[in-house]
């Protein structure tokens, strides 16, 4: 139903849009929480953050509750600007979960590094709101706004350590290149708008079907798809748009790195899944491109991770490789692949948040995260070392952890799609990956050269690590608890798209 009618050259707004407020409750409670945290932070003495964390966690739980109560509903509201379905629910819950986990272990790091900036917490929550917006719409206007809300908050988070050149350098690089990529993305949207008059991802295929070959419209659509891919590939850190990733991951405060490694991936791959659904008709065009991006990401990410001496940087390159694995799911263009991505995103969030969380314990030793500095972590903090071992094993994709099943589903998906070469590449690069992950595991358990003191593990961080580890093992033992709803979600979404429903 149109909100605005056109009469005699004048705009006349008439009825207000039908709004399904329930669908917006998770986002609204998230934003309200963020605002509340911002307000409370103003009135707290410097360095006292416990109330912020508590409020944040309550707000996240509330948002999660609202999102869970929307489970299995499928609707669009706000003139098709907002979409709720199982895909968006799953991804939103993953985002909320990753945020909650980050909240749990951040305070220790802030205190140890003397970064007593309360802004961290509202920024984190606003970033999550941005990510939730991204995965809950197919309208690129909304997606773009969500992307900017997420990115702007992340630029600041990356530069949180104000008196540290590396942190600022990473913020500057992230900001300049991120804004650069946003411009590409935006221009892609403009082209789509020009070609179809709509900024909805679902309009891509329709426009492609309606446009005659060789016309300006079809050229604009091609340009649009290419530019959108550039923007999304940048955020997903796919090669060759990955170059910011290692620098930013290494330079940013580890808590910010943990958060962005998980949440940005979830949000961007959420959009990419919608993109694949919306642009399925043009697969002949973008699938070969994504094929190359996936292959290059897997190879370059893993090879460069192999030669790193800094754990944060290594994990950054490995995140490029993981983005490549997930892109394999996009290329395979089938339900197995897309649901495999959903599974992988959840698993990767746990692995990545957990692994960086373990690295935050190094804040006590001058925040040195070189592999050399991590040697013998077991003798300092056995629990952190054990947790890290599980997380790394999962990152390496060794059963019975969730990391294995994630790779397995993507592997099967690419075989089902007949992408044998990509499947082989996935397997081979995973082997390379296992080498550096397991190398780090050995380093953790190697006795240190000198005697070391034991470090205390704060309870919230222990809870976070425990949640990550147990989650991974549980998902590894019973993958179908997640893959079954994921598959259902993808199939339902595909039917809806193919039958032309909003």
């Amino acid at each position, binding site marked *: 139903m149109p909100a605005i009618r056109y009469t005699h050259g004048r*705009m*006349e*707004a*008439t*009825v*207000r849009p039908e709004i399904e407020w329930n669908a917006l409750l998770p986002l609204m409670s998230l934003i309200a929480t963020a*605002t509340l945290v*911002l*307000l409370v932070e*103003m*009135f707290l003495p410097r360095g006292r953050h416990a109330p912020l964390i508590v409020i944040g966690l309550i707000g996240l739980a509330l948002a999660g509750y609202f999102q869970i109560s929307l489970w299995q509903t499928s609707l669009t509201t706000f003139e098709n600007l907002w979409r709720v379905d199982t895909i968006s629910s799953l991804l939103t819950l993953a985002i909320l979960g990753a945020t909650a986990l980050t909240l749990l272990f951040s305070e220790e790091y802030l205190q140890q590094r003397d970064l007593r900036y309360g802004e961290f917490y509202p920024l984190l929550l606003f970033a999550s709101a941005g990510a939730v917006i991204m995965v809950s719409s197919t309208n690129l206007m909304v997606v773009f706004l969500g992307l900017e809300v997420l990115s702007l908050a992340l630029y600041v988070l990356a530069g949180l350590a104000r*008196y*540290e*050149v*590396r942190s600022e350098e990473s913020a500057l690089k992230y900001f300049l290149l991120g804004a650069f990529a946003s411009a590409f993305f935006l221009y892609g949207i403009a082209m789509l708008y020009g070609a179809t008059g709509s900024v909805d991802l679902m309009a891509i295929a329709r426009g492609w079907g309606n446009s005659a070959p060789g016309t300006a419209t079809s050229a604009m659509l091609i340009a649009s798809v290419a530019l959108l891919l550039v923007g999304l590939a940048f955020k997903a850190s796919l090669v060759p748009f990955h170059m910011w990733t290692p620098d930013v991951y290494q330079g940013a405060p580890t808590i910010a790195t943990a958060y962005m490694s998980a949440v940005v991936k979830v949000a961007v791959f959420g959009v990419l899944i919608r993109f694949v659904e919306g642009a399925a008709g043009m697969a002949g065009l973008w699938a070969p491109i994504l094929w190359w991006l996936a292959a290059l990401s897997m190879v370059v990410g893993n090879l460069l991770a192999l030669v790193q*001496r*800094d754990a944060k940087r290594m994990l950054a390159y490995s995140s490029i490789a993981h983005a490549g694995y997930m892109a394999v799911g996009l290329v395979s263009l089938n339900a197995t692949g897309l649901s495999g991505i959903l599974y992988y995103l959840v698993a990767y969030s746990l692995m990545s948040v957990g692994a960086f969380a373990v690295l935050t314990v190094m804040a006590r030793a*001058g*925040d*040195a*995260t*070189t592999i*050399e*500095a991590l040697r013998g972590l077991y003798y300092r903090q056995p629990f952190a070392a054990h947790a890290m071992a599980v997380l790394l094993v999962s990152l390496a994709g060794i059963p019975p952890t969730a990391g294995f099943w994630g790779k397995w589903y993507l592997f099967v998906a690419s075989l089902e799609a007949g992408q044998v070469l990509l499947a082989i590449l996935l397997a081979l690069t995973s082997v390379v990956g296992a080498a550096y992950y397991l190398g780090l595991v050995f380093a953790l358990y190697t006795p240190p050269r000198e005697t070391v003191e034991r470090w205390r593990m704060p309870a919230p961080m222990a809870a976070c690590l425990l949640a990550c580890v147990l989650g991974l093992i549980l998902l590894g033992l019973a993958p179908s608890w997640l893959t079954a709803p994921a598959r259902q979600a993808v199939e339902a979404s595909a039917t809806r798209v193919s039958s032309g429903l909003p």
Partner: protein
Amino acid sequence: MVYDYVPIALLMGIALVIAAVMVGGSWLLGPRRPTPAKQSPYECGMTPVGSARERFPIHFYLTAMLFIIFDVEVAFLYPFFVVLRELPPETRAFALGVVGVFTFLLVIGFVYEWKKGALEWEDPVEHRRLKPEPQPAPAGEQP
């Protein structure tokens, strides 16, 4: 048509004449005792000429940043009020509510920057906390 530009041309002419009279008058009539302060184009604020690397108070930037963001956000209100009167009453209430929320968020941002001292020209917090050389490079750094 060309004639449409006549008023503009007239206006420009008058402006030129007035400017010439003022500058010429002071040049002819005024006593000339130059001082460095008087010789600079602006007698207050920052020196416009010189090395671009020169330091100047960072607050220029800060204030500009704060200004631009509020400036642009407030620009959202303009199209809204243009169409507000044309809305039917029940929609108008809803629309006012939406704009209320928007304004509320802006005000929170304003309160935040106020409370954080971003509007103070002398920033006691920042001056106190600025550390000279804060960051020893972590071990194992790449050359």
